């Protein structure tokens, strides 16, 4: 079985590429990257394993950090906490995980499995359950597949540890785990319901760590050579440029624990005279060009700095920024009728029919 060594250069690229796949949310991968730099300096190494190499009866631990990105800027992510969430799950369900995977490749959670893997000496599985970032627990491929949502472990660095043993639905898991997370100070390291190798092979979104590394490597290479980083992304991903422009207005409001709002843009270059508006719920959800919806979840809408090619987040986007908006193809699992129920425009409250940029 082929395990591939992940180099520190790969992780530097992963941090950039995962932020692009974060589609505006998911939190910055920077602190995860710092943790990995420190671990690699100490001699720790991590390997990547294709889900195709899992045996059907292997067990896999899926991890993510949960909570408010802002709290994460003060209570800095610590590689040992996510490792502890995995170890707690192994103690609880009495299995040994063959590998560790990410719940969410978009943003900071792309690096969480690497941190756990470095401490626990297991490979990282090259798959996740979103292919991007999404705001809620039921917005995953495994929820679309109606796999069991429980148990779940949550860990706080002060020795607070909880197991959510049983919930009937993914929505209940979202509500109960969110409450625990809030008590912990709105940040918690979590290990999601253990998955068998067969489940990961059937319901995982595959090759996403490799994909994020490739996107990041393309952007960094273009930056070094002073070439167009957007073109570099499109050379490794079958995406489409939707728009180039300047941010003219950002309107944000917090409702039910989410950051919702809209950003307006004025067109530049070939898009002069055309107005874009993108609505967000933590992540970019629907893009409108001159009042018509042109891209929507589950298509990935990525707002990128036109000069650096790096992603621009919904929490930090500001008036005057020059951006290029691109769309990347969605994971096929979300294109079924069931998939669209979970993550299509109506799941976010937009009464529009899903139409893919790539249809």
């Amino acid at each position: 079985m082929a395990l591939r060594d992940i180099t520190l250069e790969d992780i530097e690229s992963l941090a950039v590429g995962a932020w692009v796949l974060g589609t505006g949310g998911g939190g910055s991968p920077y602190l995860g990257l710092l943790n990995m730099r420190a671990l690699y300096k100490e001699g720790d190494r991590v390997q990547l394993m294709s889900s195709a190499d899992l045996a059907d009866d292997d067990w896999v631990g899926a991890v993510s950090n949960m909570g408010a990105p802002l709290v994460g800027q003060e209570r800095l992510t610590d590689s040992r906490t996510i490792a502890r969430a995995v170890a707690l799950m192994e103690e609880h369900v009495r299995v040994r995980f063959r590998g560790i995977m990410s719940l969410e490749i978009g943003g900071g959670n792309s690096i969480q499995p690497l941190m756990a893997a470095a401490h626990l000496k297991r490979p990282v599985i090259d798959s996740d359950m979103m292919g991007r970032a999404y705001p809620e627990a039921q917005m995953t491929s495994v929820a679309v597949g109606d796999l069991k949502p429980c148990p779940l472990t949550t860990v706080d660095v002060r020795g607070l540890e909880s197991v959510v043993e049983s919930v009937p639905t993914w929505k209940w898991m979202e509500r109960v785990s969110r409450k625990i997370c809030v008590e912990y100070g709105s940040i918690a390291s979590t290990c999601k319901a253990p998955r068998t190798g067969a489940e990961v092979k059937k319901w995982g979104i595959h090759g996403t760590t490799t994909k994020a590394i490739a996107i990041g490597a393309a952007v960094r290479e273009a930056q070094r050579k002073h070439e167009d980083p957007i073109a570099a992304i499109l050379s490794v991903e079958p995406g489409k440029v939707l728009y180039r422009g300047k941010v003219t207005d950002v309107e944000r409001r917090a409702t039910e624990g989410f950051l919702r709002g809209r950003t307006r843009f004025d067109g530049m270059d070939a898009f002069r005279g055309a107005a874009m508006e993108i609505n967000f719920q933590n992540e970019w959800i629907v893009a409108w060009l001159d009042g018509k919806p042109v891209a929507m979840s589950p298509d990935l809408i990525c707002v990128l700095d036109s000069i650096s090619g790096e992603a621009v987040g919904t929490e930090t986007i500001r008036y005057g920024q020059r951006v290029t908006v691109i769309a990347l193809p969605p994971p096929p699992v979300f294109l079924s009728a069931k998939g669209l129920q979970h993550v299509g425009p109506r799941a976010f409250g937009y009464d529009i029919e899903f139409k893919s940029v790539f249809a």
Partner: protein
Amino acid sequence: MRRIGIDVGGTNTDAVLIEEGKVVRAVKAPTSEDVTTGILDSLKSLGSTGVLAGKKIDGVMIGTTHFINAVVQRRSLTKVAALRLGMPASASLPPFCDWPEDLAALVRGGVWMVEGGHEYDGRLFMPLDEAAVTGAVQEMKAAGLRSVAISAIFSPLDPGHERRAAELVAAVIPDAVITCSSDLGRIGLLERENAGLLNAALADLARDTIAAFETAIADSGIAAPLFITQNDGTVAEAGQARRLPVYSFASGATNSMRGAAYLSGLADAMVIDVGGTTADVGQLKHGFPREANSVVKVGGVRTLFRMPDLLSIGLGGGSHVQLDPLKVGPVSVGYRLLKEGIAFGGRQLTTTDVAVASGVLNLGDRKKVAHLDAATCKKVFDEAARLAEEAIDRMKTEAGDVPLIAVGGGAFLIPEKLPGVSRVVHVEHGDCANAVGAAIAQVSGECDQIFKDLSRTDALAAAQGIANDRAVAAGAARASLTTIESEDMPLAYLPGNSVRVRVRVVGDVAAG
């Protein structure tokens, strides 16, 4: 109101006298190694026509690049003891963890991490472990460390633990110089802590530099309070600047933009400051530079300083000119212009030579550049204008035409008409815009914190009150305070109605 503004640059020390809103006199003197002599010379030159005789000066405002240069050039830095209150969180990312190794090696005197800190909603994260703090301070003392940087989780919301730790440090090391990260503002532990560490590293340099400024002013016979200009275009009293030198990092660019606003009378405009080597383009909003919103790296260290959002391009009065194929900049002869430029007997064709040939500038020897015909000169000016136009377009935040103020010694490169610009404004004393900006600086106060379960109006009012108090503490006259920024940001994933509010106010320096 009568003030003196001084800009201590790498090459020149400029000084201006402003009286009742008018620039009375502006002078330049070479910057000296010891700082004091250069300032004394410029003040002597300023007073040589008798404009200062028998007059009361309300303030001397100095802008300097000393502190940022020390970090960039890795010199005159103090060893720092880093004390972080927040264990057991964040342990895998200790202070200095994202610093360039060479700078960390110079500054890192030791790292201590103990239990403490708060939650986002004001709850305790962990009680402060006072015994561990005192133990750490004993070790700092034994190691001979005097400059201590204290950081705590969510200290911008509740600075209590940092303040208590500072008392415990002072009890053991009475002459300690202490930087608390909560004095440096923003949410973002690593970046705020980095700012605190840089600040602590500048402790000795700040003390010596500000003492040199005070000596120069006293020796010049001027009896006036000293103010130091800050990154955001406002000033701090000398005592506060000595305590928080990082706030004065990037004042040069800010001062020139503020000076441009003042000299032109425009509050909303683009500004291009053309020096010898580079041109900085920025945007004025309500008379202040638009700030960069994101992380700012200083000497390779990530921080969240309030810095103007600037775009620098390689265009200046000393830029190399190549005629075939046509190329202007980015290489420059810099301060060697008077030796290397052709009009001055040198061998390198520069933008200044072209300006002399075309009669725009009356410098050096025009005969030496007589071979440059009018068509060639026009091509060079057109290329310089194209470079400027592109930079201005990238920095504009609105599509319509906006006015452009051109300042700095190389402002002659900016033509009277540019696409995307409604009009180009050249101003008298534009080459001393830095010193003018220093002279007119105001005092600011800022609040950036999270409020919970308050209405938006109440949260904004609470933030306003805190910002006002901070401005007054920094030396502003309360009656003159105005709000120049007010921004609220609801927070994702936090329960209740959590909103982060940032308010900045400015006011005139209170009369002593």
